[in-house]
């Protein structure tokens, strides 16, 4: 048994400042196994990876690998035992060439002091050939696509005698075609006896390829199981510890007048000839692969990248939206995709983050802030969106992901928009908050707001939208009523067919 495992951790415990981040974790990964480590944000996934890769030392427990029992590891020992981690940001050097990115790690591991550029090239060629990756070795990595950067990272991870590759949220930034390609690479690695550990907080993306799941919650191991024992509902329960009801869209179809009409919107190579109408009280879904133009379309409606041609009507009147200020002025609000970098100033207070877009209306003469009005507005939104905080003067980064997303939502609701555009409204949000956010959206629509939800989360589209537009290569490829389709059918519509991973 023991020889079969590439790694086995027993009774792993780790605390930070008295808070248990990990509590008695037992985990075995066999050679050639594809294992998924799942858990919500803050469940201890990252801490576990960091212990396995030697970044953190455990307080107690052991790590067995390479036939030895370790009480702690250094990063070098972990790598020496064949453990490689591919982080979400891929840890590449954007300023260096593909060749250097690939060769540096090996050369460092070999304790080289001098650079032999010819050897660099040889190492790099060998690395990309392992996964049949076609790329210009002299290209600067910063200029590559996300998928290519990931392949650079995978090639690099394979350079040493790798036994286990840990991949942190590997599919989030990829298009489905790229995911297919990635899975093919992974199955190939598996056939060579290399174990893969996915780290994920979504079930869908790695479900079909994972052989076993380990789910963490609040630092504790909830279960280790096989996919046959799992479904969305159980998965959600294990992740949150709550009985979770999957609700289907219940909003009624009684929608009002058009509130936003786009016709013939075109922007360079991002999207072209996009026309649609959003009505009052409607939640309109827009979906498509990453790179289908869905994000660019949203940013264009919000004035970040103004469309080059086409017209936009708000409330029946034709308007020009050339800047974010224009968009806000016309009652358009946008909840961005990346909450942490685009949505919030993490170190500023919850209150300031809520009122910032609205602040000019909460001021007296000479731009003097009206603290009382501000306070009232903040209190109102904190209670209305049930933001879990005792003191809105605390920085936003004291909140959980779900509550942070409510702050972003509050910021925009405070501007009293007619049109609310949400890009991936529940990405990185725990399942409990997700349901709450969906409930809020449904209520807002019922109160007459026009809402656009941009998402590739099919469950989400099914639960919230009455109508979904399909975006493909920058053009609208169809419109569906998600209530009439199964999740599989919807997924196939987006990708243009079922995923074909196959074994070779």
């Amino acid at each position, binding site marked *: 048994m023991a020889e079969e495992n590439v790694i086995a951790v027993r009774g792993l415990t780790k605390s930070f400042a008295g808070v248990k981040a990990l509590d008695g974790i037992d985990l075995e990964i066999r050679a050639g196994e594809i294992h998924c480590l799942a858990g919500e944000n803050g469940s201890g996934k990252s801490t576990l990876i960091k212990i396995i890769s030697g970044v953190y030392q455990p307080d107690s427990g052991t790590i067995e690998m390479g036939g030895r029992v370790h009480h702690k590891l250094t990063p070098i020992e972990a790598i020496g035992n064949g453990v490689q981690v591919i982080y979400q940001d891929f840890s590449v050097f954007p300023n260096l060439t593909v060749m250097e990115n690939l060769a540096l790690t090996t050369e460092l591991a070999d304790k080289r002091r001098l650079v032999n550029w010819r050897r660099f090239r040889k190492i790099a060629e060998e690395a990309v050939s392992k996964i049949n990756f076609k790329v210009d070795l002299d290209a600067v990595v910063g200029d590559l696509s996300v998928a290519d950067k990931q392949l650079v990272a995978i090639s690099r991870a394979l350079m040493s005698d790798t036994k286990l590759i840990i991949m942190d949220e590997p599919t989030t930034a990829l298009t489905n075609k790229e995911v297919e390609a990635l899975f093919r690479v992974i199955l190939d690695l598996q056939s060579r006896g290399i174990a893969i550990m996915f780290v994920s907080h979504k079930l869908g993306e790695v479900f079909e390829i994972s052989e076993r799941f380990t789910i963490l919650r609040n630092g504790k191991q909830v279960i280790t199981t096989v996919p046959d024992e799992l479904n969305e509902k159980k998965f959600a329960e294990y992740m949150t510890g709550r009985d979770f009801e999957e609700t289907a869209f219940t909003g009624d179809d009684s929608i009002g007048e058009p509130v936003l009409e786009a016709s013939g919107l075109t922007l360079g190579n991002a999207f072209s000839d996009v026309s649609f109408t959003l009505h009052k009280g409607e939640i309109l879904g827009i979906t498509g692969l990453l790179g289908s133009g869905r994000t660019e379309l949203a940013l264009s409606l919000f004035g970040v990248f103004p469309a080059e041609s086409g017209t936009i009507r708000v409330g029946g009147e034709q308007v020009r939206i050339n800047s*974010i*200020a224009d968009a806000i002025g016309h009652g358009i609000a946008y909840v961005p995709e990346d909450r942490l970098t685009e949505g919030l100033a993490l170190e500023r207070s919850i209150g*300031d983050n809520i009122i910032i877009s609205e602040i*000019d209306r909460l001021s007296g003469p000479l731009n*003097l802030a009206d603290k009382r009005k501000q306070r009232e507005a903040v209190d109102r939104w904190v209670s209305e969106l049930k933001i879990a905080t005792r003191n809105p003067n605390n920085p936003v980064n004291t909140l959980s992901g779900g509550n942070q997303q409510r702050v972003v939502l509050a910021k925009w609701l405070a501007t009293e928009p007619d049109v609310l555009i949400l890009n991936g409204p529940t990405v990185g949000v725990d399942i409990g908050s997700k349901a709450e956010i969906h409930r809020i959206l449904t209520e807002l629509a019922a109160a007459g707001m026009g809402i656009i939800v941009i998402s590739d989360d099919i469950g989400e589209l099914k639960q919230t939208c009455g109508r979904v537009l399909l975006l493909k290569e920058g053009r609208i490829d169809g419109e569906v009523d998600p209530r009439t389709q199964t999740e599989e059918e919807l997924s196939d519509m987006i990708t243009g067919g079922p995923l074909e991973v196959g074994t070779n």
Partner: protein
Amino acid sequence: MTTTTTPDKQGIGTRFLSLARTDAHVTRLVVILLALLVMFAAIRPGNFANSYTWISMAVSFPEFGLMALGVMVCMVTGGIDLSVVGIANLSSIIAAMVMLALAPGGSGTAIGAAIAIALVVGALAGILNGILVAVVKIPAILATLGTLELFIGISIVLTAGSPISGLPPEYSALMAARLGGVLPMQFVVFLVAVALVALIMGRTTFGTKIYMLGTNATSAKFSGLNSVSLLIRTYLFSGILSAMAGLVMLANYNSAKADYGVVYTLLTVLIVVLGGVNPNGGSGRLIGVVLAIVILQILSSGLNLFPEISNFYRDLIWGGVLLLVIATSEITARNPFKRKQKEVS
């Protein structure tokens, strides 16, 4: 401290105490200041008790204090203003030239006009900085390094490198006035500036916005803030504060020259960092910066009382204090840093 009061009803003292409790850095500065005062009183009780000591301090520190306030507002946005000395000298030179051109013998209007023009020059210089940083998008450190050279260069060209003196006596008389018979004019100017900064940073929407901008420029943009206008106004404000410093220097030296106070470039940055402003932007309190200004002035005046110690030790002490502060604040910041890493999980 047995009863809990609502924030609105707290007195100044309680509020200060609660501030000191929430902001370890301010506490540290207060402790340093008190220690300095105690040392000063113990070693040189005569000077300590002499009001002249304090008045001469109050005359000189507004020079760099005003500039430091300018650097602070820029640093809150995540930028920096290294050109403050250049702006101060340029505006004081132009003020001096205006005075001499209009009425060498002195007249109220001429002096008023000179002061107004100096402030306008400071504002224009600040706008140039703001445009370079916000529109051209040059990193603030390089942009203001360039304009520092430019402003000093223009000052040299205007004066051919020599000092402008022989100012109308009314100007020095104006600045030598003592408010209430005690407070030197320079100090009053500084107080006005502090009040202005406190008002703008703490009580206006502009202040909230630039703290937001400094914390996360991208989210500020997505929140609909106009970063170009905010930054230009920030650097403009810094320019005006620098021009005020120039007017103080003009009075203190009774002349204007292109290279007065060149050491202040580093000193002001030092003060602002010492005062607890995050060089990456987004945080920093006025009270911390004011405390740092006062500490540095007392430190350097204290040194003057020891003729056997070279003046040049000031550099050593300033540099040492700066390194000490960043080194120790780093240590206390280590734990939150680690916890933050964990939160990413």
